[in-house]
């Protein structure tokens, strides 16, 4: 692929010299990365020093994962360079970065689940005995020693997959550090950990920091940033908008930096196609009570009246999508009930939810929504097929009628109903998905990021459509990462935080200032 490659032994000035305070061990210097016409990183400078733990924050699409991939050799920057210990480094592939001491711990542990803990730690560098055979006993005692140094007691002969997720992550961490990692990048490490495991992780992070290892910590959980990080870099739309110490910052400041809206700058001109927030006095059609699911949501209540748009606010990982999925029967709940007009809906069954009139537009349109190899027609009628059939035989006339109505009403641009849906633009694919659900004449419409990844024109159309559907009496729940979409589209906003309902904004409080304050976890201004 390339002739230049990084060799760990060639540029390792800090080896054996101990941590040098303030000198950045890893630095991205004016890095730009484009994908096609989209600039994912725009002149980003990011650095972390030995013994420093740096938080990397930003909402979805801010460029965090692109930056991590540039730092670890998955992508190569279009512009700018990576400096390692002050020397320019070119990582041709992720392995080069690893060899040079940059290790990444992902939320999904990428080790070998069926091998033992010890085997995983020493994979590819097993201690050898006589005859060049693997010295299993020494490997196990070394592994035990290594882990106990971090306060982790575990039977190292157990297969990795039989260990708790927290332990698995610790094993990944121990492996990385015992190889030669000088920089450890952690991407959402706590998302599936128990509280006690998080404690252990934090203890290990602090130990690593004291050993002079640089830590890059990516998380959406505000508490964790304040607990284990000294500095923070905030990205927004591919640019660095803030670098500084964590101490002295408030949650509110951090949130408004991430979202790009100052708490004071309220009451702006409407930036969306929504006419007004929708409220209603009719009795609730959807009532969800006490929805709980381990690690995801806890005791969430939600009531939606016909003709009302209720926004679900919250940062990524707050349980927005999880709440929708629980209501739509995609995931089974541990506790809680859902009723439509008072009639209970069996949980954990999509078809039961659909029969009751609850439909959900999934967040990941490509993987969970469209069937790419099928035509626009087949995608639209997919859910409604039984209704458009007679004795199991599909009726072309009935299908054509429905497809025609919705292609016209939603302005779906396709060369014909027979065009494969994969060839359509994102916006038109989204309209196909909406058409699929409207063909079921639903009573409750759950929208998860309905305008993500679609162009401006289609976005306005979809927003106007949401308005129209609400005024026709549909009960709508709207989840969006875009704060103005939630505020201007919803008549009421239920704010989630770490899986629970934090607060509810109604009436004049449905504005950006109140939502920002609620997201940050501070009191709503009266």
């Amino acid at each position, binding site marked *: 692929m390339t002739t230049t490659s990084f060799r760990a032994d060639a540029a390792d000035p800090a080896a054996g010299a101990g941590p040098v305070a303030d000198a950045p061990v890893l630095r991205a210097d004016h890095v730009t990365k484009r994908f096609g016409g989209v600039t994912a990183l725009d002149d980003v400078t990011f650095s972390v020093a030995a013994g420093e733990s740096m938080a990397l924050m930003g909402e979805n699409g801010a460029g965090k994962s692109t930056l991590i991939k540039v730092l670890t050799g998955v992508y190569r920057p279009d512009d700018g360079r990576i400096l390692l210990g002050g020397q320019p480094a070119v990582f041709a592939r992720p392995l080069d970065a690893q060899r040079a001491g940059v290790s990444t711990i992902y939320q999904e542990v990428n080790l070998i689940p069926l091998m033992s803990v010890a085997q995983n730690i020493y994979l590819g560098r097993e201690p050898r005995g006589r005859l060049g055979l693997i010295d299993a006993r020494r490997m196990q005692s070394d592994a035990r020693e290594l882990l106990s140094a971090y306060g982790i007691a575990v039977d190292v002969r157990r297969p990795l997959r039989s260990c708790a997720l927290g332990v698995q992550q610790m094993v990944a961490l121990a492996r990385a550090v015992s190889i030669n990692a000088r920089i450890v990048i952690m991407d959402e490490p706590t998302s599936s950990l128990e509280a006690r495991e998080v404690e252990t992780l934090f203890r290990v992070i602090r130990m690593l920091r004291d050993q002079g290892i640089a830590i890059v910590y990516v998380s959406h959980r505000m508490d964790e940033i304040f607990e284990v990080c000294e500095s923070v870099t905030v990205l927004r739309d591919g640019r660095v908008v803030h670098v500084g110490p964590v101490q002295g910052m408030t949650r509110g400041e951090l949130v408004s930096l991430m979202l790009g809206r100052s708490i004071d700058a309220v009451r702006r001109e409407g930036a969306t196609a929504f006419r007004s927030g929708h409220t209603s006095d009719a009795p609730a059609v959807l009532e969800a009570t006490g929805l709980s699911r381990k690690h995801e949501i806890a005791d969430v209540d939600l009531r939606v009246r016909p003709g009302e748009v209720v926004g679900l606010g919250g940062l990524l990982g707050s349980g927005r999508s999880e709440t929708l999925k629980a209501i739509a029967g995609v995931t089974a709940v541990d506790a809680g009930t859902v009723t439509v007009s008072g009639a209970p809906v069996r949980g954990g069954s999509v078809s039961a939810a659909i029969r009751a009139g609850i439909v959900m537009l999934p967040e990941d349109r490509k*993987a969970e929504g469209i069937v790419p190899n099928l035509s626009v027609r087949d995608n639209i009628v997919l859910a409604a097929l039984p209704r458009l059939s007679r004795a199991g035989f599909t009726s072309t006339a009935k299908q054509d009628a429905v497809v025609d109505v919705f292609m016209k009403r939603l302005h779906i641009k396709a060369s014909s109903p027979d065009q494969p849906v994969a060839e359509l633009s994102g916006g038109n694919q989204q309209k196909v998905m909406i058409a699929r659900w409207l063909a079921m004449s639903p009573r409750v419409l759950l929208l998860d990021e309905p305008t993500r990844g679609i162009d401006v024109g289609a976005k306005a159309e979809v927003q106007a459509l949401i308005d129209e559907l609400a005024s026709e009496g549909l009960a709508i729940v709207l989840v969006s990462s875009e704060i103005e979409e939630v505020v201007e589209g919803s008549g009421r906003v239920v704010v989630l935080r770490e899986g629970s309902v934090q607060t509810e904004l109604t009436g004049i409080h449905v504005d950006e200032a109140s939502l920002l304050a609620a997201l940050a976890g501070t009191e709503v201004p009266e």
Partner: protein
Amino acid sequence: MSQTLTVALPRRATVVGFFQRYGVYLAIVIVLVVNLAVTPNFFTLDNVRVQLVQVVPVLIVALGMALAIGTEGIDLSVGASMALAAAVIPLYIGYGVVPAALIALACSLLIGLANGVMIAVIGVQPIVATLSLMVAGRGIALLVAGEQLRSVTDPGFLALGRGAIGPLPWSVLIAAVLVAIVAVLVSRTTFGKQLVALGGSRRAAELAGLPVRRILLVTYLLSAALAGVAGVIGTARLGASVPSTLGNLVELSAITAVVVGGTPLSGGQVRVIGTVAGALLLQLITATLVKHDVSDAYSQIAQAVIILLAVYIQRGRAVQR
């Protein structure tokens, strides 16, 4: 084919697309032309009839296989279904042809039920589930048959395999009807549309509320039933129930026919007519080699080469040397 298609897609894609779609028909034409030149007496009515009669069992099995593959699955137990159907025929032929055939079908449906429950309800991978029935099913067939070859002499039953109405053999007629039924099932019924959608994106099908389990269960039931029909016809043709060998390796021929016919192993598409053409192509190539006294070993190698070619073309890299 259509003007807009040629204009809209880059040239490479259209050429590959052409071979993916029509390669099998082109291959049939080539084999026929070659035979016209080198094989005496190939284009006689008798030979055409023989070829059709011989292709019937594989063709019927391949129809069910196409459905299983369309769901992104596979059915390796079709040979066992054939054998089990064959094994019970001699036991019940005393009650008449129709009852015996129905009981045979019911027995093969049991294999389909076992497959379907494992795959749809328990969530076992299709290849594993049907592999276990491929082995166990034939074992059961041998137990039922007492490991003996039994001849079947009922003239009505034998007519299924050897008789004809005018020039058209009964077995070919049955196969033609089954092709029509499966073609309608795939293109004109709710079940067929749901099956294809499920194969295209299982997650999307689940979130659209499709009865995913039921679709999978019915698919494997259909595959087993079709294999059962093939077992009955095969037994009638042989005039004997031979559960130890009937349907051996039929799953490979069926998969080849389906893939050569343009149905991708990745699911989301079922090409019924393509599958028919795929089965015919395999039969014609075997017959050609046989007529020129090429040993069976070479004909198997030829089959392997065709599979490779078909899969290669489906990967879309055939052109642009």
